[in-house]
């Protein structure tokens, strides 16, 4: 303490002043130094392209012919995009598959988590490990496996259905569809959404279950005890104690599901063999964007579609957060 005061009172010599200045300079710029990789990479891959995409959306560009082949077309790409029935069809497909896979995900994950926390820690650990396994596996590998299981001639789904339609006990249930067996799970326009949604559901239930298990762990046992003393049964305890307190977790889980489903690409891409099967109902926005940009080589239109999507998604996100955000985040 004493020595410090001495130093600060001593007249500052010229080199010391310089060193001080240098220190000051260093102090000021060090954080930017540490952030440099972020600035460079984000600038190059994050900010610059957005502006470039605005520019591109007013042009016709075939990437194979290089940057020189760009041709100004004004708003044509936007007009084409907005009047393109396929764009709206694929948006609808994405929405339908998001609901078909998303809603059951949470309807299964909640009771699974609720039952899991009732178990001993050993059983809970093993079951959680099993449930979470699909989440770490690559979507392509998983979709390939399901593609084989969905196969019309040799797939396990059809084999089981065929077996059940002939077994004496179950034949009457399946008599309605017996004529149409084996089913083309990934070939038929009427089935593809269910087939894709099932894979998505299967892959993400475990993830949501873990989120809800963690959420349930934050709820104090005293509350359950109190509810029990008040005569609440198992269902009432779930409905009136767990569910309200899980709200922030549900909000978060549902948000992640929505974001994930808007980006749905791999599963429908693999299951429809790159868009060869069930073109009309099985194609998501992402699949369509990929097709326009890389198969039809029309980057300008793809950029315009991206902007249209950006606006649509922005509107839906705003509505979602307006409706549920405040409640979901616990009234803050």
């Amino acid at each position, binding site marked *: 303490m004493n020595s410090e005061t001495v130093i600060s009172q001593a007249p500052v010599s010229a080199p010391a002043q310089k060193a001080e200045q240098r220190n000051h300079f260093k102090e000021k710029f*060090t*954080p*930017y130094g*540490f*952030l440099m*990789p*972020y600035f460079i990479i*984000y600038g190059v*891959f*994050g900010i610059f*392209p*957005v502006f*470039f*995409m605005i520019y*591109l959306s007013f042009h016709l560009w075939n*990437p194979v012919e290089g*940057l020189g082949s760009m041709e100004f077309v004004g708003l044509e790409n936007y007009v084409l995009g907005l009047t393109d029935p396929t764009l709206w069809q694929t948006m609808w497909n994405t929405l339908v598959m998001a609901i078909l896979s998303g809603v059951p995900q949470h309807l299964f994950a909640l*009771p*699974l988590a609720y*039952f899991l926390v*009732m*178990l001993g820690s050993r059983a809970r*650990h093993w079951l*959680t*490990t099993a*449930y*979470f*396994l*699909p*989440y*770490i*596996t*690559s979507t*392509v*590998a998983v979709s*390939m*496996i399901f593609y*084989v*299981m969905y196969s019309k001639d*040799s797939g*396990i789904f059809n*084999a089981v259905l065929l077996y059940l339609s002939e077994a004496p006990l179950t034949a009457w249930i399946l008599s309605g569809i017996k004529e149409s067996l084996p089913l083309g799970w990934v070939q038929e326009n009427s089935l593809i959404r269910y087939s894709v949604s099932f894979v998505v559901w299967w892959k993400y239930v*475990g*993830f949501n279950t873990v*989120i809800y298990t963690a959420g349930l762990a934050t709820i104090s046992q005293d509350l359950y005890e109190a509810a029990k003393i008040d005569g609440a049964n198992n269902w009432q305890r779930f409905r009136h104690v767990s569910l309200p307190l899980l709200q922030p977790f549900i909000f*978060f889980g549902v948000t*992640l599901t929505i974001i994930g489903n*808007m*980006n749905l*690409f791999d599963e429908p891409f*693999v299951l429809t*063999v*790159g868009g060869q099967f069930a073109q009309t109902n099985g194609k998501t926005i*992402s699949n369509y*964007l*990929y097709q326009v940009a*890389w198969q039809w080589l029309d*980057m300008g239109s793809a*950029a315009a579609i*991206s902007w249209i999507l950006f606006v649509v998604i922005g509107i839906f996100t705003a509505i979602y957060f307006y409706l549920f955000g405040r409640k979901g985040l616990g009234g803050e």
Partner: protein
Amino acid sequence: MTQSQATFIVNLYHKAGKLVVYIFLGLFAFITIFPFVWSAILATHDRSTMFARGISFALGDKIAQNYSNLLELMDFWTGMLNSLSISVIGTSFSLIFCSMAGYALATYKFKGRNAIFGVMVGSMMIPPILTLIPYYMVISTLGLANTHLAVWLPFTINPFGIFLIRQYVVASVPKDILEASKLDGASEWRTYWQIVLPLLRPGLATLAIVQFVFLWNNFLNPLVVLNSPEKMVITQMLRGVQGVPNTPWGAVMLGTTISILPLIAIYMTASKQMISGLTSGAVK
């Protein structure tokens, strides 16, 4: 009804309830595991035994033949190696870049810090699919098309990772240590590299899991930028055989099974860490 009869009925009711719970949990575990087991079983069959089988869990004896078919079908191990190198290099760089940024955001007060926060949160909200076209344009403009760099470099600055590290720095790096290190004459960089990084190990492990799983499983980005067979990653190669006429599905299932084994092996030894790591964005 006597007292004992009543207890008996209540007990029965509880037992039945428990049984329903166990059946539900067990059934779901079966649904989850079944496709993995099934693909492993199919990996031992060829076309003829697969088509004739109906429902049977018997293992076939065609695994060696499937393996040689697989190698004929694609450059399987090149794909595995490409995936591995992309995942390892990409994960390593993202650990460095994210921890640098997270450390700076946590310890320094500087102009523009809030703006950077805002941009990061904003960029997390944008669905990746919308950035696919610009991503491809930048890659091809920079001449990075068909390079592995294009598949990992843009993902080394994961905003989620930066936040995660920032939280860890705030929670587990005491300011006194940083002060002491500076008084000892260590440079800013050395303080970060030798003092801060070791303290961040748990946070870095979490981030490494997230990044490795993402890079290993990534399909869309390799699909649009990697187009020569010797550069392709394993997910791309597996998908590619769908177009082959008379696909030898046994061989493809063998390849699929092998390709998911590395992650499953890591998962089996560190499932707790991986689960908590991959859900840390949601749970904390």
